[in-house]
């Protein structure tokens, strides 16, 4: 290291920078859905923003963790894609024809789904957009996503190498 800066600060800075990009991504998706497809966004835009920030934190923490545990850029890419789709499927992001989300379908699949951060992000969005709930109601989901972020970032700080 060329300067006496703890490595977690650099990782945190990287995460914060990518959160900006994630927020832009969320804003574009919801903005287009709302403007062109008249999708309701609920009564709590502040709640949506807070959930999006926490979601960005979780996803970028996961990205940094993948970079920390992968041995090459191709491996990181593959792990990221596989994890991205597999966790999205288990979390209920790909269940689009059912009125009941995966995390509410009961049984083992509900248990598995609720172990995935995607499900908690979906749950938070669903509460804000579909059920007319407010920021206080999504605090449990925000807490769980933050917990995932801390775990991912902890692994990243532990395993991250700044040099090849």
């Amino acid at each position, binding site marked *: 290291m060329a300067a006496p800066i703890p490595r977690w600060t650099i990782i945190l800075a990287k995460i914060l920078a990518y959160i900006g990009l994630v927020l832009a991504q969320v804003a574009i*998706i919801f903005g287009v*859905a709302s403007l062109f497809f008249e999708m309701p966004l609920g009564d709590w835009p502040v709640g949506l923003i807070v959930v999006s920030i926490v979601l960005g934190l979780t996803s970028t923490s996961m990205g940094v963790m993948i970079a920390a545990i992968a041995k090459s850029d191709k491996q*990181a890419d593959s792990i990221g894609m596989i994890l991205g789709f597999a966790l999205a499927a288990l979390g209920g992001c790909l269940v689009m024809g059912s009125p009941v*989300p995966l995390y509410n379908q009961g049984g083992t699949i509900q248990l598995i789904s609720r172990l995935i951060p995607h499900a908690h992000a979906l749950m938070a*969005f669903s509460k804000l957009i579909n059920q007319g709930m407010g920021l206080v109601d999504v605090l449990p989901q925000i807490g769980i996503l933050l917990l995932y972020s801390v775990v991912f970032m902890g692994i990243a700080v532990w395993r991250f190498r700044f040099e090849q």
Partner: protein
Amino acid sequence: MRLKIRRYLIIPDNFSEKLSNAEHVTLTLVEHPNVDSSTTQTLMDILSGMGDDQSLELQILDGIHLMGVMQATNPEVQSGFDITRVEQQAKDQFEVSRENPLVAVIERQPASEAEAKPAFDLSSSFVPGLCVLFVFLSSSAVARGLFKERKSGTLRRFPIIGFGTMSIREHPLAWALTSNLIVLCSTCMGVLIAAISHTEVQAGGLSNALLWVAG
């Protein structure tokens, strides 16, 4: 146990009382737009049959009750209400109930906001699902980007460039903003180079020249 509600039936207040008073009542079946239409039709048939039966029963009973009242108030007409007369009265009431049933069953989709709230909205579940999917897929780009930086050495040099005077402990948001601005500037420069270049080789040369001169 969690139940899935796809249809619900609205029975108006004082349903039985209104029927007894020969008032028309309407049962409303509210359903989600995506429910199975054949099941809905079966349900409508069942409801209509039950409604017709109840209407018929009440109208016949009302007719006989009316005759009983007339008989009680005027004993002289007792002979008029023989078995044939009662049967005829019941048949008449039956015809009336068939032609003009007191119970009507209608089918509709949720109209008001309050009714529509529990309904499933495809866009509301589809879009957040895709959004969360794309957000988490971007973690792959984060990992790839960090690897590239590590490979090129920029990650190691990161602390000694322009951020040197800025303490991330005190200004993490300023740090993030600066990083985003650098990303924005470099991307815009890339787009500019692509716009003014005629070939791929020219773009590569131009970007190298700009980087060396600017750096």
